[in-house]
Structure formats: structure tokens, C-alpha cells
């Protein structure tokens, strides 16, 4: 059976998209350095921005329900320019996957296993990802439900046990944020957490017929953005309430916040459970980007199977992740200054172009 014959249901895709948003939680520090204690406000702004993005994607998925992004590019831009845009998209997906591999490796290296070489950590995670990608998209999306339940249990557990340590005074002064800072941080949240949904344009063609109803894509996008935003707000509220002003300074604020939780000297230091969760969420992120890269190369070269591409691309991905950034601070700097603009090109500019050209073509054909 061909791997592209696998079909997924709308519920599974929604779960995967929520996991995909939560994968960016490791980058929460980036917007926290800008927005400080008003981070929840910035997240609300980011959710609104991402709903605007979602309108574009909803229109595209409605126009082309059975096509992946590569085929849409070919149809809209013509065969040569379409191939060029598709190649850019594949490079974007590949670099994103490598960047997240590097980010999770940095996290494990600096917080949990300082003596282990980075190469080993990256290899260990990528072998699991390669196995999952080899098994197909259905496997990844089915697995997401398990880890989503685990994540919600963990967040609820942290909220209950940490409640006595939380100081809600930390949120004062409220609304102490300039307009530029607000827009900047909301834009960071919108592009890094939600804007990466553009990769799911590759996977809407895999939906089965029962979930390809009239408004199913609207439902999928809205539910996943809202629930992902809700989880994000809860996590940032926990972080700010627990460590307050220290949060913007630290590289992994949520992880540090959980270190503080202490229930009568019996339940302490369970941040390692959180690290498993962070790892699981980033695993989905890497898997989705990895799968998008492999199936994109397959589509663009018109190959008959894709399983043989997984190992070489995985090895290239490990090497790219090792040389992408020199140190963890470069990640933060890149995500605050460069990504909000560089990501917008792929997340907004090209999708808008696709919509505009589709409409123009319709006008000229009708004449």
C-alpha cells in the first residue's frame, strides 16, 4: 500500500494541530523578553492575528480540497515558477525542522544532560522521527491524542500543586506595555506559534471523505487555534505567577517555574515530567516538518515512493541542525528579530498570492 493512501479524520488533524502549537511553547521566552508580565495580552493579540492568517488558509483549502501545497503551486504559478515556489517552501520546512531539532537539543544539553554530546541527543530524537515518518502520517496524527491528554493532565497537575506558590501580584502593573512592544510580541506569537500552520496545507488532502464536509476546515482551524491559545495562556500564567520578573531573563521559563513547586517537601522537583512533555510536543513539530519535506520532494520530483528518502534527508537534517546556530542565544535573537519577517513571506505573502492569482484567473476565464 502506498503511504499517501493513508487517510486521517478531522478530529485527528485537530489534535495534531494543537500539539503543533504546543511545540512552540519551548520558545515562550522569545515573546516574554518583549512583553514581560503582559504576555497573556500578547498571546491574545497573537491569536487574533493567527485567526486572520487562518482565513487565508481556509479559503485555499476550500478552493483546492484534494491538492497539496506543491500541486496548488503548480496549478497557480505555472510549472516553472510553481516549482521554484515549491522548492522555497521545501527549504523553509526543512530549515524549520532542523531549527526545532537544534532547539530541543540545546534544551536537553543545557538543562538535563550537560555531559552528553549534542550530536547524540539529536541522533536519538531523529531516529524516532524517521521511524514515525516512515510509518506515515496517520501514525503521527493518531499518536498526538495520547500526548495531548498527557499534556493537559500535566498542566492541570502543575496548576493545582503550584497554586499555593503562585503570586498573582506578579501581573501588576497591568497593561504596562507600549504599543510597539505589544505589536512586536503579538507578531512573534502569531508567526512562531500559529503562523507555521502553513505546513498543514500539505496535509489537508489526506483528510478522509467523511471529514471533507462543507465547513470542516473552518472548524479544524478555529478549534485548534483557540484551544492551542488557551493552553498557551495557561502555561504563561503559571510561569509568570510562579517566577514573575525572572521569567523574561531565563531561557526556559516554564521549565524553571516548575522547579519552584514544592508541596510540603513531599512533591518536589518534578520538572523532568515537563521536559518529557516538551520533548513530545517538539517531536510532533519535527515529524510534521520532516514529513512535509520528504513528501514535498517526492511530489516535486514525481517519485513513486518516498520511504527511501527518509534516511538521507534525516542525516542532512542532523548536520544542518548542528551548524544552524552557534549558541542558544542566537536562537532567541533569530526568533525575535529575523523570523517575524522571514516567516511572514511564507506564511502570508505566498498564500495571499495564491488566492489573488486564483481569483484573477477566474475573472479572465469567465470573460
Amino acid at each position, binding site marked *: 500500500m502506498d503511504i499517501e493512501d493513508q487517510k486521517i479524520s478531522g478530529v485527528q488533524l485537530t489534535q495534531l494541530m494543537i500539539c503543533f502549537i504546543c511545540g512552540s511553547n519551548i520558545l515562550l521566552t522569545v515573546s516574554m523578553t518583549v512583553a514581560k508580565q503582559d504576555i497573556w495580552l500578547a498571546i491574545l493579540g497573537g491569536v487574533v492575528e493567527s485567526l486572520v492568517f487562518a482565513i487565508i488558509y481556509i479559503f485555499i483549502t476550500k478552493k483546492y480540497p484534494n491538492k497539496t501545497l506543491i500541486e496548488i503551486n503548480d496549478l497557480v504559478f505555472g510549472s516553472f515558477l510553481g516549482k521554484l515556489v515549491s522548492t522555497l517552501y521545501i527549504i523553509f520546512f526543512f530549515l524549520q525542522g532542523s531549527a526545532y531539532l537544534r532547539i530541543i537539543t540545546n534544551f536537553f544539553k543545557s538543562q538535563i544532560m550537560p555531559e552528553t554530546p549534542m550530536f547524540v541527543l539529536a541522533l536519538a530524537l531523529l531516529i524516532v522521527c524517521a521511524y514515525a515518518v516512515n510509518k506515515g502520517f496517520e501514525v503521527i496524527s493518531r499518536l498526538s491524542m495520547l500526548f495531548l491528554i498527557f499534556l493537559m493532565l500535566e498542566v492541570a497537575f502543575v496548576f493545582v500543586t503550584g497554586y499555593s506558590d503562585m503570586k498573582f501580584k506578579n501581573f501588576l502593573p497591568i497593561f504596562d506595555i507600549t504599543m510597539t512592544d505589544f505589536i512586536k510580541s503579538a507578531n512573534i506569537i502569531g508567526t512562531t506559534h500559529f503562523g507555521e500552520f502553513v505546513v498543514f496545507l500539505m496535509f489537508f488532502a489526506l483528510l478522509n471523505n467523511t471529514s471533507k464536509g462543507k465547513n470542516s476546515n473552518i472548524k479544524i482551524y478555529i478549534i485548534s487555534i483557540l484551544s492551542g491559545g488557551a493552553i498557551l495562556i495557561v502555561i504563561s500564567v503559571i510561569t509568570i505567577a510562579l517566577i514573575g520578573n525572572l521569567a523574561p531573563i531565563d531561557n526556559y521559563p516554564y521549565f524553571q517555574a516548575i522547579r519552584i513547586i514544592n508541596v510540603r517537601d513531599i512533591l518536589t522537583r518534578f520538572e523532568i515530567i515537563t521536559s518529557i512533555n516538551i520533548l513530545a510536543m517538539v517531536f510532533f513539530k519535527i515529524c510534521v516538518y520532516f514529513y512535509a519535506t520528504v513528501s514535498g520532494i517526492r511530489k516535486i520530483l514525481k517519485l513513486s515512493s518516498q520511504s*527511501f528518502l527518509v534516511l538521507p534527508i534525516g542525516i*542532512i537534517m542532523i548536520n544542518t541542525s548542528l551548524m544552524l546556530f552557534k549558541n542558544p542565544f542566537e536562537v532567541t535573537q533569530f526568533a525575535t528579530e*529575523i523570523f517575524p519577517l522571514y516567516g511572514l513571506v511564507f506564511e502570508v505573502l505566498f498564500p495571499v498570492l495564491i488566492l489573488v492569482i486564483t481569483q484573477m484567473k477566474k475573472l479572465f476565464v469567465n470573460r
Partner: protein
Amino acid sequence: MIMLIIIFILIAIVQYPKLINTESRREVIIFTVFLVFAFVFSILQKIGVEIPSPYSGIEKIVKLFT
């Protein structure tokens, strides 16, 4: 270094018979290109050659517009 070469030889031993039996020549060529690229990249990384990060180029392009 020897481990690296052994791993690549293992990948080739596992993948090539499958590809040659079932797929056309196109797939074999594309697989070879990717595998050689991965091999060269890994060896360069192992020796310690500094490859410029693709993000530094993107950074320069983005800074032109800001």
C-alpha cells in the same frame, strides 16, 4: 570516522537491493544523489570544516528591508 563510513555502507546495503528490484532508474539516481550529499556533509562536519549557516544569509537579506 570509521563508524560514519560503516553506517553509510549499511544504509546503502539495506536500501539499494530494494530500490533496484522495485523502482525505476530515476529513484536510484535520486537516492544516490541524496546519500552522497549526506555523506559529504557528515564528513565535513566531522573534520570540523566551518560551513556558513543558511540563517546568516537570510539574516542579511532581512536586514536589507528593515
